[in-house]
């Protein structure tokens, strides 16, 4: 099988401000702030073949999430190139993101005040999923993740694990060709973790 993802010399730099702690430093920071360059991702290159499941491991702050954000097209790289399914994620964003799914474990796509099933319907309209496909996929994934009992309850009353299961379903409803998962198993029990991977 050919490469579905090609990343070449990917680099992301940005600037932030350094500030000490305490009142004196806070006061000083009102007038003078030291600009600090940060290299979030430095010259990363890799390939992923079609059908592969690949994990990125590294210590905190290594740039794993930033790399995934650049792969999803939500952040622009400073230099280097990315090609996913022949697309440059930063160009033709709408066409590209239609083909991918993404779960960011620390952030939510679900709408807080309404049940997850209504958020799913919102994505159905956004992705233009047919009624038949939507019903079939929702039924299948509801069964796999055992979410039938709680997808009609408001999101705000769900546990972290229940919400993560719904986040995963939300990212998969449009049947994406490539899925990017950033800490997707936060709060999940071992059975659900197993179901996501297999």
């Amino acid at each position, binding site marked *: 099988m050919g490469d579905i993802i090609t990343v070449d010399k990917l680099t992301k730099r*940005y600037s932030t401000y350094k500030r000490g702690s305490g009142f004196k430093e806070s006061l000083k920071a009102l007038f003078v702030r030291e600009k600090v360059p940060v290299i979030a991702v430095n010259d990363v290159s890799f390939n992923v073949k079609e059908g592969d499941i690949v994990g990125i491991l590294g210590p905190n*702050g290594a740039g*794993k*999430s*930033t790399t*995934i*954000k650049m792969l*999803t*097209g*939500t*952040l*622009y790289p400073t230099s280097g190139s990315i090609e996913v399914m022949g697309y440059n994620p930063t160009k033709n*964003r*709408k*066409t590209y*993101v*239609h083909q*991918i799914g*993404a779960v*960011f474990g*620390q*952030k*939510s*796509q679900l*709408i807080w*005040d*309404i049940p997850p099933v*209504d958020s799913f*319907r*919102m*994505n*159905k*309209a*956004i*992705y*233009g999923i047919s009624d038949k496909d939507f019903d079939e996929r929702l039924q299948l994934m509801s069964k796999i993740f055992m979410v039938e009992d709680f997808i009609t309850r*408001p999101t705000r009353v769900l546990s972290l694990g229940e919400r993560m299961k719904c986040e995963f379903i939300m990212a998969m409803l449009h049947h994406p060709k490539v899925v990017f998962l*950033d800490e997707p198993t936060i709060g999940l029990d071992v059975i659900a973790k197993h179901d996501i991977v297999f």
Partner: protein
Amino acid sequence: MKKHMKIYKECIKVAFAAASTYRLNFILNCTIMLLGDIIFPLITVLIYGSGAGFQGWTVYEVLLIQSIFTMSTAIADMTFHGVMWVTMDMVRNGNMEMVLILPVDTMFILMARTFSFEGIGLFLGGFTIFIVAVLNVSIPSIILWLQFLTFFIIGIFVMMGIALIMAAISFKWVGNSRIPEIFSSIRSFGKYPQSIFPKAIVFITSIIIPVAMISYYPAAALLGRVNSGMFIMILPCFLFLIFGIYLYRHMVRLYQGVGG
């Protein structure tokens, strides 16, 4: 277009579901918005009642301007003002990714998702004052109504332009809670007859930030006070909206996110 209509319909359903979840909050917000904005025309009545006023303008003519402003604000609050609040919040918390991964225009989806029913009370309040004001000025002809409608819609475009520029600023000026106040201050120049301002202010409010189109020009149309210059001012209004859209899209591209 059909897809966008479908998404918008779904967003309205969600807004209704959210409003019905917090019923008391919804009723309170409607009432507070109504009281907060409706007090302004009432002050005008008090000013005129004490013998003062804007030279060359009757109380009903000024009320007409202010009621149009209130209706415009209500429509904007319901349909697109949310983009400013949600952008500020998302940039600060680094949640913009959740919108950027959707295959739809970021600006459109944020406007649709922040559709709010809470402006209904404000709109009805403004509409009531509008009817009272219109009944107390000479009844406009159909042509004048058409001119009014044209200016009114373009005025809403100006409001959209201001909201987008303010939202775009929040990408650089992260977490600044004063942005909505700047927004409100700029808009408030549209609440008064332009003839009370110095020429420099009239130039700014007609061409640079054309807030005069929000309520003064539509009211002038209904009162038969339009001149050819007002029609020319349509152009800067469109340019202002285009600039707002361009700036917002440009700033979205510069979005840096927060730590992972």
